[in-house]
């Protein structure tokens, strides 16, 4: 199975493909509307020299635009999630549940928390599908 470098456009494209290929996701996320952007704080000690900005957009069970972007684009997200690299890696590898990461303050959310709670199955399914992407992490290189 091919492996992809984390936080690259190629990696995002494969993740998006996984989401759009999932019938289960389509059903779970049929009510979800809006984008989720992610900010991964720079951590040179982990080979992440600069802050990473990612934009992902979802609508009624479909994944739409997935982009490595700039800070301005990230701020347009309906939900903006921020965290350190180590936490994002834990979440992406399912070593830390995203809801727990939020509650423990390891990830920060800007956006309507009520909506996220209402649609927490969708959030978890998106992460589940990310774990199916063979990922090369910067600090594992």
């Amino acid at each position, binding site marked *: 199975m091919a492996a992809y470098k984390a936080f690259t456009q190629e990696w995002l494209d494969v993740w998006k493909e996984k989401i759009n290929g999932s019938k289960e996701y389509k059903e779970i996320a049929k009510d979800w509307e809006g984008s989720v952007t992610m900010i991964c704080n720079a951590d040179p000690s982990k080979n992440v020299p600069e802050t990473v900005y990612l934009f992902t957009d979802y609508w009624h069970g479909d994944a739409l635009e997935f982009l490595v972007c700039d800070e301005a684009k990230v701020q347009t997200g309906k939900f903006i999630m921020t965290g350190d690299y180590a936490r994002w890696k*834990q979440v992406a590898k399912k070593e830390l549940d995203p809801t727990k990461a939020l*509650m*423990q303050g390891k990830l*920060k*959310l800007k956006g309507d*928390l*009520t909506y996220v*709670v*209402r649609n927490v*199955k969708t959030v978890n399914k998106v992460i589940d599908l990310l774990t199916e992407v063979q990922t090369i992490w910067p600090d594992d290189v």
Partner: protein
Amino acid sequence: MNGYAGKFLEVDLTKGICSSLTIEEAKLKKFIGGSCLAASLYLEKYNIQADPLAPESPLMVMNGPMVGSGFPGTSRFAVAAKSPQTGIWGEAACGGNFGPELKKAGFDGIIITGQSPSPVILSVINGETKISPAGDLWGKDIYEVTDICKAEDKGIKVLAIGPAGENLVKFAAIGNDKAHFIGRTGLGAVMGSKKLKAILARGNQSLGKANEEKYKEIFKAAVKEIKDSAFAESLHLMGSDAAMDLGMMNGDVPIKNWTVGEDYELSSNLSGPTMREKYLTKAHACANCPVACKRVCVVKDGPYETEEGPGPEYETCGTFGTMIMNYDLGAVIKANALCNRYGMDTISAGSTIAMAMELYEKGIIDKKKADNLELTWGNMEAVFALLKKISVREGFGNILAEGSLKAAAQLGEAAMDSVVQVKGLEPPMHDPRGYHGMGLAYMMSNRGACHLQHAAMGMEQGMVSWPQLFDMKDDYEGKTSQGKAMMVFNAENYGILDNSLSICHYLMYCLKPETLRDAFNAITGFDFEFKDFLISGARDWTLKRGINNLLGVTVKDDVLPKKILTPLLEGAGAGSVPDMKLLRDEYYAIRGLTPNGIVSEEKLLELGLPELRDKLYKK
């Protein structure tokens, strides 16, 4: 002494006299306050073998040293007594505003014994105490009594019982200003047995802090931590019922009297977001709390029309929702309002009715036995009728008024499999099949199955991360019993401090432990380190366990009910049950209990409890 008003009020209702009690600093530092100090006084001064409803058994309303300081979450106070529901140590904590007001009125607590020949009210106004006749209030519900007591002075804080307390319903609650309840273990019945309808507090005494400057600095840090906390935000937006959606996904929510593992229609209909969208009129806060997790709700029309008032917590959405297969949140709000008025614990009331519905379905009871009520799942008209009957002990309600365990015993051996309880107390709405650590916490909680005598839920469900206190994981696997004994041990030693410091459980989850410790020290002038906190917590747990040992609790009582040991067929908790023996064996070794579940002599001495050692080992 900073943090303390300096005296406790002792009230003998048989003689109609009040006196004050002072406690030396060393004892306060050792037992801190709240329910821990209450347990210490109970063991030292009272006949613990007496019937809970006997005049000689005390009812203790206790503050902790942080109450009244203005620090976030310190509106709490504890009420403690021998429980009429379980026959062992009973306690419940409450938010609201009574605790701070009592301290401003000059007292750290009130210890009530005796029995008045006729109904009375106790008033504590700026250090002055008065016992007044209350015959005209007897029979009135909690909302009515509260309104009458506040008619002349809206600032008066009220603790009151309703008909359930008067009629000695074993899970009767005490209400504080309509919106806050001392629900668990039936302490409203103890108040009722003393013919004490209400306690009023009003005061303006200012309370100093040992280090005002340091306190101000910590206060600012605390407010920032709360503002930054997603947990606090979720509570503010959705109340404790924020737990419903997540809980359903994670196997935490009991359904149909603990027999079904998953029903997303139920959780969607009964969840915090739904309450916010359809019924919430505003959020309400306890004294000095920036979170405001309490709900104020109204059901404007339809069969469950209910006036604007205190809305249900998550637990109530479970017991009057998922547990009885009621899909209508409006009906939960109405059931909650009825329990509030009658003065009944919503967890025990709803759970006992859920058991009755299962017995009805199984044919163990019939319509005739149930006073011609159709106890079919989700029949809310029958539920409302039953609540009324329970509160006045009428017909079938008189049986259910004993709580599920004693009610089932009256209904015959076949009924016992439908009871879900530990040590006589129905569990809250968290299923140990999804989280095995919670199973152990239920088994070992000193007041019976409980989620608030420890922080096991916060740790196991990942709401908190406290690596500075002890080894713990950020992400526990729920469906395993491995390693959970140590987790629960630590969760108890820290979480139980809520009830002695008197701080809200939720705020403890939002704050860094160092912030809480520093605030405690700045208020009291004590010099506690984390290890002192954890030793105090261990002493608290052990003291109450020792009292329970003296009341007959042994290993035979540290068990989970059959239903929780029966795997579910669906949902996140499917196919998994706690390994009761593994959990208990590991826990006993860590906690210093003998194989029979008695606190060892060595542990009692290590924790500075020689008097308890003498009583337990007859020295």
